[in-house]
């Protein structure tokens, strides 16, 4: 009896229940909310391009600013209406160059050591140390540049040669800052090279160095190149080290021992005081910011493209 009634109810239920997909409004609402969260980052990018572009446009529309002169003249003196970007750009390129001269050879060498030479115990102690180095705020590096690196350089090269604020000190310390970034990206690329490649080379009688430099590094070259480009992009956008140690005041010079203001350093100094809206200074930081944004964006996209395009895929 009981079994029969159960069967009956079951039959009844099956015949009435609608098996079509139900629209659950709660689920749809949540999905919309999540999509909005994902889309939010697009707003940020559009915001950067729109806001910076709008104000930069205002800057170039100002009577005293001439787009052509901006990129061809070598004086940046807003007080007398001269806006040649080269003194700022030159200082940025100099600090970046000095930083990369330190960070590329050291960073790649440390990565090769960690990935090919160090035993697991050494690697497990060294990697956290590098992570610590990467996690220290950049203003601390700025303090380090001003109170350690600059006196050191002045001791070595002479006080009359090296000014208190100089691009060499800022660049060297920036190199130390970028070293862990290049090391960790390079090490990832090196350890992605399969063991079998190394063992084949060892089997042919290659030494450890030959395996490292002639087998592993070429195989990981795209990853290393990407790391270097990301490093350059980071160096160009780096702000606090140069704001503290590289000097205040645009200066078109090729001497690493004299003070010169970088693009980022200039933005920080100009906006440090109470900046009044719609002044030339106010608009100029947007033009400079837009320039920085596009330069670093191009470098980052290039880096990603290199990884995608030239990556050696094993198995």
């Amino acid at each position, binding site marked *: 009896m009981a079994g029969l009634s159960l069967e009956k109810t079951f039959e009844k239920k099956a015949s009435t229940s609608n098996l079509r997909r139900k629209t*659950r409004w709660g*689920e749809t609402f*949540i*999905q919309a909310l*999540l999509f909005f*969260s*994902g889309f*939010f*980052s*697009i707003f*940020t*990018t559009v*915001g*950067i391009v729109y806001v*910076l572009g709008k104000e930069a446009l205002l800057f170039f529309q100002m009577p005293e600013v001439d787009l052509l002169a901006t990129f061809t003249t070598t004086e940046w003196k807003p007080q007398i209406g001269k806006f040649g970007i080269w003194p700022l750009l030159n200082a940025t390129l100099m600090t970046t160059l000095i930083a990369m001269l330190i960070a590329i*050879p*050291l960073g790649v060498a*440390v990565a*090769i*050591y960690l990935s090919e*030479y160090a035993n697991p115990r050494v690697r497990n102690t060294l990697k956290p*140390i*590098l992570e*610590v*180095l990467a*996690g*220290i*705020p*950049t*203003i*601390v*590096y700025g*303090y*380090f540049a001003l*109170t350690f690196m600059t006196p050191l350089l002045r001791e070595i090269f002479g006080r009359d040669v090296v000014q208190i604020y100089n691009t060499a000190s800022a660049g060297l310390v920036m190199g*130390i800052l970028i*070293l862990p970034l290049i*090391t960790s990206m390079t090490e990832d690329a090196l350890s992605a090279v399969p063991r079998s490649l190394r063992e084949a080379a060892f089997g042919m*009688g290659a*030494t450890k*160095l030959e395996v490292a430099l002639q087998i592993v590094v070429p195989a990981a070259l795209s990853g290393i190149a990407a790391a270097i480009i*990301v490093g350059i992009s*980071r160096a160009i*956008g780096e*702000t*606090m080290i140069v*704001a503290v140690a590289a000097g205040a005041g645009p200066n078109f010079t090729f001497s690493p021992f004299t003070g010169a203001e970088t693009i*980022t350093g200039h*933005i*920080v100094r100009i*906006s*440090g005081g*109470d*900046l009044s809206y719609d002044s030339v200074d106010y608009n100029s930081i947007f033009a400079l*910011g837009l320039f*920085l*944004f596009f330069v*670093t964006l191009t470098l*980052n*996209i290039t880096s990603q493209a290199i990884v995608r395009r030239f990556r050696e895929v094993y198995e």
Partner: protein
Amino acid sequence: MKEKAVVQGFTDNLDARNRKGVIWHVLFQVSTVIGIVALIALMLNIINGAFGYIAYEARVDPDTLAVDGTPLTEQSQEQLVTLLQSTLSRGAYNKLENEKPFARRPREEVYQLVLERIIRPEIVGVWNLWPSITDADEIRTTVAQEHPNAELEFVSWLTSDFVSRPQTSEPLTAGVRTAILGSLWTILFTILLAFPIGVGAAIYLEEYASDTWLNRLIQTNINNLAGVPSIVYGILGLAIFVRTLEPLTSGEVFGLVDPTTASGRTVLSAGLTLGLLVLPIIIINAREAIRAVPRSLRNASFGVGATKWQTVWSHVLPNAMPGILTGTILAISRAIGETAPLVVVGASTAISFDPSSPFSKFTTLPIQIYQWTSRPQDEFRSLAAATILVLLILLLSLNASAVLLRNRFSRKF
């Protein structure tokens, strides 16, 4: 015969190759050592700045403050209060009385006030830790010759007083309480903006998004935003939060305008700016944590008839949470150390009162370090070094908690 020739050919330059190998091995090791030396030098340099001798002179000679032959150091609490009352202006005295009645202040505290307000020691010389240890005698003779009235004392710039005192322009009485509170207030709004949106975006991209051009665009965009220099976010924050949204960020729409600001350069603007800055980092970390939750868990949930959101909410998120929180803590430590965007957004350089609402003016620890480092006087460099120690201790404890969280709650599938 033939085999031997091959072996000989192999051994011909083997020594040279091995030598080359050793040389490069040493080079690689030296590079690593340079990296470690740099870190050690950085740390020692900060410690070197945060301790050492200082020489100071009283602006008012304590001997002139003796009452009826009782020297200042032995006067009672009441005598000291009377002294303050007679020397300070009425306004300054009343302000102190309002903060905390004199009757309830212990003698030691009143004595400190007398030192700060009346005697007002002035620094005439500062030495770092290293010279203080190696050239102590020389420092003593120099001070004795050049500043016969000065007192020489070995101090730690980082003290519990330094952490609990508000900012002042006097190096001997300056503290970082204002900056610590400013940092905490700012981070609060950073988390409120970046955590929900970041986790939401990560869930969307990992669980819901199909492979369409729009979703690919969102992904590429997030990766690129992570590489944008922080100062660009500062400029964006200046234009959007400080200027365009001024009525909101200054509290005008809520009728809560802080009488001291009346502009958008507030804690709220700073927090939101940093929120945009760390959003990509939180999304990238949260996605990795969500991706680590195995497919089988979701399938089991779907199998018993759960909806997509029920699956995400009750199975995916709880299992991914330790990873998400670890990533968030790392993003927060990045935000706490940021300086450049906050300078652009308009951190105040000299405020001595604590931030009390989202619409207060603000200063933060890194801003304070920047300000003090930029001053040419040695005593401010030492203050900067002490502030760096405070900041590094804060960051270290945050990172330690991230590691603990990871080890304590992470599950292996």
